[in-house]
């Protein structure tokens, strides 16, 4: 009798058990989907495991894809100003700004659009650029590639990078200063 026989038998049993468990898992997964067991309502919080999975996947996907983007210099005040105008029109409605609440559409979303002053501290400029340009599936974040040239997106990034340094009062002053010089109708 071969000394390997018990081991072979063990492997066989293990494989059978894995196959059964795998099938049960797959059937269970399909059942959860098909019977609509996971509530996709925005007023229903994700469970912590689902949230952690989605959030980690999102962060890692951004990091991987933005890795090789080279950011230009972003400190030019003219660039920041150009970004501010686009930011105010296109980003504030969902994200808000220092001392400015997001609009109703933004507030109603799950995931909630991030506070960008915090994003600017957590993400590199190249990562913010990638997100703005490409958008994020299933989050409500649109892609802006087909609305803005790369240079305009970098301008937005330049302004977002400045956000953590702006007090609500300074942000309001920027608004007043800018829109005194430029009538609202001339806004892009």
């Amino acid at each position, binding site marked *: 009798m071969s000394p390997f026989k018990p081991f072979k038998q063990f492997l066989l049993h293990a494989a059978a058990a894995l196959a059964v468990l795998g099938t049960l898992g797959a059937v269970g997964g399909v059942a959860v989907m098909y019977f609509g067991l996971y509530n996709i309502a925005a*007023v229903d*919080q*994700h*469970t*912590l495991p689902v*949230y952690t999975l989605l*959030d980690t996947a999102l962060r890692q996907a951004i990091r991987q894809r933005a890795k090789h983007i080279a950011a230009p210099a972003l400190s030019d005040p003219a660039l920041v100003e150009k970004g501010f105008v686009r930011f105010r029109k296109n980003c504030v409605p969902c994200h*808000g700004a*220092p*001392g*400015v*609440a*997001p609009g*109703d559409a*933004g*507030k*109603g979303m*799950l*995931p*909630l*659009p*991030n*506070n960008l*002053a*915090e994003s600017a501290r957590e993400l590199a400029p190249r990562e913010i650029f990638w997100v703005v340009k490409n958008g994020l599936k299933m989050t409500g974040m649109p892609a802006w590639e087909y609305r803005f040239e790369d240079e305009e997106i970098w301008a937005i990034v330049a302004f977002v990078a400045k956000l953590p340094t702006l*007090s*609500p*009062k300074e942000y309001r002053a920027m608004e007043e200063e800018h829109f005194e010089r430029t009538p609202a109708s001339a806004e892009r």
Partner: protein
Amino acid sequence: MNLPHSPLCARAEPDGVSGHRSAPAKRRDISCLIHLILLTLLSACAQEKPPHAQKLGDAERGKVALQQYACTGCHVIPGVVGANSHVGPPLAGLAKRTYLAGALPNTPENLLRWLKEPQKIAPLSAMPDLGVKDAHAMDMAAYLYTLD
């Protein structure tokens, strides 16, 4: 024993001018005493709850409201999944906080005021007015006061 303030004991008055009590009257006295002790214990239990918990809203609905008014965008709120942000102060232990926003004594009235009109109280704060409706503020406050 004379306990005129308790309606339960209204009949436990001395039966006659002599002050002597009949056996049923004594039993009434004892049951009256037990009632009083129970009442005292009950009211002591009631006082242990935070004084604000009753008149506020529904804590479970409050959790959703905290998400739907973008509170989760800036605050760490224990028990609310995805509220991981450190833009503003974390709200853990809010029930034990002495001052709200570093300025207002922590009472339910002040918490409701702060939730509804933070800019009126602290115009320099980065926390904007979020258009919180009365009923939603009550629900939020009910949830926040579970954080101790």
